[in-house]
Protein backbone atom coordinates (compact mmCIF):
# COMPACT_ATOMS: atom_id res chain seq x y z
CA UNK A 1 0.00 0.00 0.00
CA UNK A 2 1.40 3.40 -0.95
CA UNK A 3 1.55 6.19 1.66
CA UNK A 4 -1.18 8.05 -0.26
CA UNK A 5 -3.51 5.05 -0.13
CA UNK A 6 -2.73 4.54 3.56
CA UNK A 7 -3.66 8.17 4.18
CA UNK A 8 -6.90 7.71 2.24
CA UNK A 9 -7.76 4.66 4.36
CA UNK A 10 -6.96 6.58 7.57
CA UNK A 11 -9.02 9.53 6.31
CA UNK A 12 -11.95 7.24 5.46
CA UNK A 13 -11.98 5.76 8.98
CA UNK A 14 -11.36 9.00 10.90
CA UNK A 15 -13.94 10.98 8.91
CA UNK A 16 -16.52 8.23 9.36
CA UNK A 17 -15.90 8.16 13.12
CA UNK A 18 -16.08 11.95 13.22
CA UNK A 19 -19.42 11.86 11.40
CA UNK A 20 -20.82 9.39 13.93
CA UNK A 21 -19.46 11.44 16.84
CA UNK A 22 -21.16 14.56 15.48
CA UNK A 23 -24.46 12.74 15.05
CA UNK A 24 -24.17 11.45 18.62
CA UNK A 25 -24.05 15.14 19.61
CA UNK A 26 -27.15 15.75 17.47
CA UNK A 27 -28.95 12.75 18.98
CA UNK A 28 -28.15 13.67 22.59
CA UNK A 29 -28.94 17.33 21.81
CA UNK A 30 -32.36 16.41 20.44
CA UNK A 31 -33.16 14.44 23.62
CA UNK A 32 -32.99 17.59 25.73
CA UNK A 33 -36.07 19.65 26.59
CA UNK A 34 -34.17 22.89 26.06
CA UNK A 35 -32.56 22.56 22.64
CA UNK A 36 -29.22 24.15 21.81
CA UNK A 37 -30.23 24.67 18.20
CA UNK A 38 -26.99 26.24 17.06
CA UNK A 39 -24.89 23.33 18.39
CA UNK A 40 -27.05 20.61 16.85
CA UNK A 41 -27.41 22.45 13.52
CA UNK A 42 -23.65 22.81 13.07
CA UNK A 43 -23.00 19.28 14.33
CA UNK A 44 -25.45 17.94 11.74
CA UNK A 45 -23.82 20.04 9.01
CA UNK A 46 -20.26 18.93 9.82
CA UNK A 47 -21.48 15.36 10.37
CA UNK A 48 -22.96 15.38 6.86
CA UNK A 49 -19.71 16.84 5.43
CA UNK A 50 -17.67 14.17 7.28
CA UNK A 51 -19.80 11.36 5.86
CA UNK A 52 -19.48 12.72 2.32
CA UNK A 53 -15.70 13.10 2.74
CA UNK A 54 -15.47 9.57 4.19
CA UNK A 55 -17.53 8.36 1.22
CA UNK A 56 -15.16 9.98 -1.29
CA UNK A 57 -11.93 8.80 0.38
CA UNK A 58 -13.29 5.29 0.87
CA UNK A 59 -14.70 5.22 -2.64
CA UNK A 60 -11.39 6.21 -4.21
CA UNK A 61 -9.54 3.58 -2.12
CA UNK A 62 -12.13 0.97 -3.10
CA UNK A 63 -12.05 1.79 -6.81
CA UNK A 64 -8.29 2.04 -7.22
CA UNK A 65 -6.86 -0.44 -4.71
CA UNK A 66 -9.33 -2.65 -2.84
CA UNK A 67 -10.56 -4.68 -5.81
CA UNK A 68 -7.18 -5.67 -7.14
CA UNK A 69 -5.04 -5.89 -3.98
CA UNK A 70 -7.29 -6.44 -0.94
CA UNK A 71 -10.28 -8.45 -2.15
CA UNK A 72 -8.19 -11.40 -3.45
CA UNK A 73 -6.34 -11.64 -0.11
CA UNK A 74 -9.61 -11.71 1.84
CA UNK A 75 -11.22 -14.25 -0.51
CA UNK A 76 -8.20 -16.53 -0.26
CA UNK A 77 -7.99 -16.20 3.51
CA UNK A 78 -9.80 -17.69 6.49
CA UNK A 79 -12.70 -15.21 6.38
CA UNK A 80 -13.91 -14.93 2.75
CA UNK A 81 -17.41 -13.99 4.00
CA UNK A 82 -15.85 -10.70 5.15
CA UNK A 83 -15.90 -9.67 1.49
CA UNK A 84 -18.65 -11.87 0.06
CA UNK A 85 -21.24 -10.79 2.58
CA UNK A 86 -20.01 -7.97 4.85
CA UNK A 87 -18.39 -5.77 2.19
CA UNK A 88 -21.24 -6.34 -0.25
CA UNK A 89 -23.70 -5.23 2.44
CA UNK A 90 -21.53 -2.34 3.64
CA UNK A 91 -21.05 -0.78 0.22
CA UNK A 92 -24.82 -0.62 -0.26
CA UNK A 93 -25.87 0.45 3.24
CA UNK A 94 -23.14 3.10 3.34
CA UNK A 95 -24.76 4.84 0.35
CA UNK A 96 -27.73 5.71 2.53
CA UNK A 97 -25.83 7.50 5.30
CA UNK A 98 -24.97 10.83 3.60
CA UNK A 99 -28.58 11.17 2.41
CA UNK A 100 -29.98 10.52 5.88
CA UNK A 101 -27.43 12.96 7.30
CA UNK A 102 -28.38 15.59 4.71
CA UNK A 103 -32.05 15.15 5.60
CA UNK A 104 -31.44 15.72 9.32
CA UNK A 105 -29.17 18.67 8.57
CA UNK A 106 -31.76 20.30 6.28
CA UNK A 107 -34.58 19.72 8.76
CA UNK A 108 -32.53 21.33 11.53
CA UNK A 109 -31.45 24.26 9.36
CA UNK A 110 -34.82 25.00 7.85
CA UNK A 111 -37.15 24.03 10.70
CA UNK A 112 -34.84 24.09 13.75
CA UNK A 113 -36.62 27.08 15.25
CA UNK A 114 -39.95 25.27 15.40
CA UNK A 115 -38.66 21.99 16.90
CA UNK A 116 -39.54 22.97 20.48
CA UNK A 117 -43.12 23.75 19.55
CA UNK A 118 -43.54 20.74 17.25
CA UNK A 119 -42.88 17.58 19.29
CA UNK A 120 -43.76 15.32 16.36
CA UNK A 121 -41.09 16.92 14.19
CA UNK A 122 -38.55 16.73 17.01
CA UNK A 123 -39.33 13.03 17.55
CA UNK A 124 -38.95 12.32 13.83
CA UNK A 125 -35.60 14.17 13.69
CA UNK A 126 -34.43 12.28 16.78
CA UNK A 127 -35.47 8.94 15.29
CA UNK A 128 -33.61 9.71 12.08
CA UNK A 129 -30.55 10.80 14.02
CA UNK A 130 -30.68 7.56 16.06
CA UNK A 131 -30.88 5.63 12.79
CA UNK A 132 -27.75 7.40 11.51
CA UNK A 133 -25.84 6.57 14.70
CA UNK A 134 -26.90 2.91 14.68
CA UNK A 135 -26.17 2.50 10.95
CA UNK A 136 -22.88 4.36 11.38
CA UNK A 137 -21.80 2.03 14.19
CA UNK A 138 -22.85 -1.03 12.14
CA UNK A 139 -20.87 0.23 9.14
CA UNK A 140 -17.85 0.95 11.33
CA UNK A 141 -17.93 -2.59 12.71
CA UNK A 142 -18.29 -3.94 9.17
CA UNK A 143 -15.20 -2.00 8.16
CA UNK A 144 -13.26 -3.55 11.04
CA UNK A 145 -14.42 -7.04 10.12
CA UNK A 146 -13.40 -6.51 6.48
CA UNK A 147 -10.08 -4.84 7.25
CA UNK A 148 -9.28 -7.41 9.92
CA UNK A 149 -9.78 -10.21 7.39
CA UNK A 150 -6.85 -8.92 5.30
CA UNK A 151 -4.27 -11.39 6.59
CA UNK A 152 -1.51 -11.96 4.02
CA UNK A 153 0.09 -15.43 4.21
Amino acid at each position, binding site marked *: *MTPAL*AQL*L*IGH*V*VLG*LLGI*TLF*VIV*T*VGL*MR*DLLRISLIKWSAFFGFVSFVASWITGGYYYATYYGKAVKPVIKAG*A*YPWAHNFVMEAKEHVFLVLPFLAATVWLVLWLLGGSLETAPGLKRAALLLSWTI*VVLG*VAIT*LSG*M*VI*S*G*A*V*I*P*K
Partner: protein
Amino acid sequence: MMGWYTFLIVMHIIGTALGAGGATVSDLSFFRSVRDGKVDRSELDLLKTISMAVWAGFGILVFSGFGFFLLYRIQSPELGLIYNPKLLAKLTIVLVVFFNGLLMHAKVFPLLESFVDRPLFNPDFSKRAPIAFTTGAISIISWYSALILGAWRGLDWSYGAIMGSYLAVVAVGIIFANIVGRQLIKKFGTNQL
Protein backbone atom coordinates in the same frame (compact mmCIF):
# COMPACT_ATOMS: atom_id res chain seq x y z
CA MET B 1 10.30 12.25 18.88
CA MET B 2 7.17 10.47 20.13
CA GLY B 3 6.09 7.78 17.65
CA TRP B 4 2.46 7.05 16.68
CA TYR B 5 2.35 3.93 18.87
CA THR B 6 3.44 5.82 22.00
CA PHE B 7 1.04 8.67 21.18
CA LEU B 8 -1.85 6.21 20.83
CA ILE B 9 -0.92 4.46 24.09
CA VAL B 10 -0.92 7.82 25.91
CA MET B 11 -4.31 8.78 24.41
CA HIS B 12 -5.76 5.34 25.21
CA ILE B 13 -4.66 5.68 28.85
CA ILE B 14 -6.10 9.23 29.07
CA GLY B 15 -9.38 8.01 27.56
CA THR B 16 -9.58 5.07 29.96
CA ALA B 17 -8.75 7.24 32.97
CA LEU B 18 -11.41 9.79 32.04
CA GLY B 19 -14.01 7.14 31.21
CA ALA B 20 -13.53 4.65 34.06
CA GLY B 21 -12.73 7.41 36.54
CA GLY B 22 -15.72 9.47 35.38
CA ALA B 23 -18.08 6.48 35.57
CA THR B 24 -16.90 5.77 39.13
CA VAL B 25 -17.28 9.39 40.25
CA SER B 26 -20.64 9.59 38.47
CA ASP B 27 -22.05 6.57 40.33
CA LEU B 28 -20.70 7.78 43.68
CA SER B 29 -22.03 11.31 43.06
CA PHE B 30 -25.43 9.93 42.09
CA PHE B 31 -25.81 7.97 45.33
CA ARG B 32 -24.43 10.91 47.33
CA SER B 33 -26.87 13.30 45.61
CA VAL B 34 -29.97 11.20 46.29
CA ARG B 35 -28.94 10.37 49.89
CA ASP B 36 -30.95 13.29 51.29
CA GLY B 37 -34.06 12.28 49.38
CA LYS B 38 -33.82 14.93 46.65
CA VAL B 39 -31.59 16.13 43.82
CA ASP B 40 -30.89 19.84 43.61
CA ARG B 41 -29.86 21.78 40.53
CA SER B 42 -26.15 21.96 41.42
CA GLU B 43 -25.98 18.19 42.01
CA LEU B 44 -27.60 17.51 38.64
CA ASP B 45 -25.24 19.98 36.92
CA LEU B 46 -22.29 18.15 38.52
CA LEU B 47 -23.60 14.80 37.22
CA LYS B 48 -23.95 16.31 33.73
CA THR B 49 -20.41 17.69 33.85
CA ILE B 50 -19.04 14.29 34.88
CA SER B 51 -21.06 12.71 32.08
CA MET B 52 -19.37 15.05 29.59
CA ALA B 53 -15.96 13.94 30.91
CA VAL B 54 -16.99 10.30 30.47
CA TRP B 55 -18.09 11.00 26.86
CA ALA B 56 -14.81 12.81 26.21
CA GLY B 57 -12.92 9.81 27.58
CA PHE B 58 -15.01 7.49 25.45
CA GLY B 59 -14.29 9.55 22.33
CA ILE B 60 -10.54 9.60 23.00
CA LEU B 61 -10.61 5.86 23.68
CA VAL B 62 -12.47 5.05 20.46
CA PHE B 63 -10.32 7.28 18.24
CA SER B 64 -7.06 5.97 19.76
CA GLY B 65 -8.40 2.40 19.54
CA PHE B 66 -9.06 2.86 15.83
CA GLY B 67 -5.58 4.41 15.60
CA PHE B 68 -4.09 1.13 16.87
CA PHE B 69 -6.28 -0.79 14.48
CA LEU B 70 -5.11 1.27 11.49
CA LEU B 71 -1.48 1.06 12.61
CA TYR B 72 -1.66 -2.74 12.67
CA ARG B 73 -3.70 -2.86 9.46
CA ILE B 74 -1.10 -0.82 7.56
CA GLN B 75 2.11 -2.02 9.21
CA SER B 76 1.44 -5.62 10.32
CA PRO B 77 -1.77 -7.05 8.80
CA GLU B 78 -0.35 -10.60 9.03
CA LEU B 79 -1.00 -10.53 12.81
CA GLY B 80 -4.75 -10.75 12.17
CA LEU B 81 -5.51 -9.09 15.50
CA ILE B 82 -9.16 -8.23 14.94
CA TYR B 83 -10.31 -11.84 15.18
CA ASN B 84 -8.71 -12.19 18.60
CA PRO B 85 -11.45 -13.22 21.09
CA LYS B 86 -10.22 -10.78 23.74
CA LEU B 87 -10.35 -7.86 21.31
CA LEU B 88 -13.79 -8.89 20.04
CA ALA B 89 -15.05 -9.07 23.65
CA LYS B 90 -13.55 -5.65 24.41
CA LEU B 91 -15.24 -4.21 21.31
CA THR B 92 -18.57 -5.69 22.35
CA ILE B 93 -18.24 -4.19 25.83
CA VAL B 94 -17.30 -0.79 24.35
CA LEU B 95 -20.51 -0.99 22.29
CA VAL B 96 -22.45 -1.70 25.50
CA VAL B 97 -20.82 1.37 27.12
CA PHE B 98 -21.83 3.47 24.10
CA PHE B 99 -25.49 2.46 23.89
CA ASN B 100 -25.83 2.43 27.68
CA GLY B 101 -24.51 6.02 27.71
CA LEU B 102 -27.09 7.04 25.11
CA LEU B 103 -29.81 5.32 27.13
CA MET B 104 -28.74 7.30 30.20
CA HIS B 105 -29.18 10.52 28.23
CA ALA B 106 -32.53 9.38 26.89
CA LYS B 107 -34.01 8.17 30.19
CA VAL B 108 -31.95 8.91 33.32
CA PHE B 109 -31.12 12.61 32.92
CA PRO B 110 -34.70 13.54 31.95
CA LEU B 111 -35.90 11.55 35.01
CA LEU B 112 -33.55 13.42 37.36
CA GLU B 113 -34.37 16.71 35.62
CA SER B 114 -38.06 16.18 36.31
CA PHE B 115 -37.37 15.60 40.03
CA VAL B 116 -35.02 18.53 40.68
CA ASP B 117 -35.79 19.96 44.16
CA ARG B 118 -38.71 17.54 44.56
CA PRO B 119 -38.87 14.68 47.08
CA LEU B 120 -37.74 11.39 45.55
CA PHE B 121 -39.96 9.34 47.87
CA ASN B 122 -43.01 9.04 45.65
CA PRO B 123 -44.51 6.26 43.54
CA ASP B 124 -43.57 7.87 40.22
CA PHE B 125 -39.86 8.02 41.07
CA SER B 126 -39.90 4.52 42.60
CA LYS B 127 -41.42 3.17 39.40
CA ARG B 128 -38.94 4.90 37.08
CA ALA B 129 -35.77 4.73 39.22
CA PRO B 130 -34.64 1.16 38.28
CA ILE B 131 -33.45 2.46 34.89
CA ALA B 132 -31.04 4.81 36.72
CA PHE B 133 -29.72 2.05 39.00
CA THR B 134 -29.46 -0.42 36.13
CA THR B 135 -27.65 1.85 33.64
CA GLY B 136 -25.33 3.08 36.42
CA ALA B 137 -24.33 -0.51 37.24
CA ILE B 138 -23.87 -1.42 33.56
CA SER B 139 -21.73 1.67 33.03
CA ILE B 140 -19.25 1.13 35.84
CA ILE B 141 -18.94 -2.64 35.33
CA SER B 142 -18.47 -2.25 31.57
CA TRP B 143 -15.81 0.44 31.92
CA TYR B 144 -13.81 -1.67 34.38
CA SER B 145 -14.30 -4.82 32.29
CA ALA B 146 -12.89 -3.05 29.22
CA LEU B 147 -10.01 -1.72 31.32
CA ILE B 148 -9.20 -5.18 32.71
CA LEU B 149 -9.39 -6.79 29.25
CA GLY B 150 -7.04 -4.13 27.87
CA ALA B 151 -4.52 -4.65 30.64
CA TRP B 152 -4.70 -8.47 30.94
CA ARG B 153 -1.99 -9.51 28.48
CA GLY B 154 -2.01 -13.28 28.95
CA LEU B 155 -5.78 -13.85 28.89
CA ASP B 156 -6.56 -16.65 26.43
CA TRP B 157 -10.26 -17.33 27.14
CA SER B 158 -12.74 -17.79 24.32
CA TYR B 159 -15.15 -14.99 23.35
CA GLY B 160 -18.02 -16.93 24.94
CA ALA B 161 -16.15 -17.39 28.23
CA ILE B 162 -15.20 -13.71 28.46
CA MET B 163 -18.69 -12.47 27.57
CA GLY B 164 -20.32 -15.07 29.85
CA SER B 165 -18.22 -13.86 32.80
CA TYR B 166 -18.93 -10.24 31.91
CA LEU B 167 -22.70 -10.83 31.68
CA ALA B 168 -22.67 -12.68 35.02
CA VAL B 169 -20.92 -9.74 36.72
CA VAL B 170 -23.31 -7.28 35.03
CA ALA B 171 -26.32 -9.29 36.24
CA VAL B 172 -25.01 -9.34 39.83
CA GLY B 173 -24.20 -5.62 39.60
CA ILE B 174 -27.70 -4.75 38.34
CA ILE B 175 -29.35 -6.76 41.13
CA PHE B 176 -27.06 -5.23 43.77
CA ALA B 177 -27.59 -1.65 42.48
CA ASN B 178 -31.36 -2.10 42.45
CA ILE B 179 -31.42 -3.54 45.99
CA VAL B 180 -29.29 -0.64 47.30
CA GLY B 181 -31.42 1.84 45.33
CA ARG B 182 -34.70 0.47 46.72
CA GLN B 183 -33.29 0.61 50.24
CA LEU B 184 -32.39 4.26 49.66
CA ILE B 185 -35.89 5.10 48.45
CA LYS B 186 -37.38 3.33 51.49
CA LYS B 187 -35.02 5.33 53.70
CA PHE B 188 -36.29 8.60 52.16
CA GLY B 189 -39.79 7.53 53.10
CA THR B 190 -38.85 6.67 56.69
CA ASN B 191 -37.05 10.02 57.07
CA GLN B 192 -40.09 11.92 55.79
CA LEU B 193 -42.52 10.26 58.19
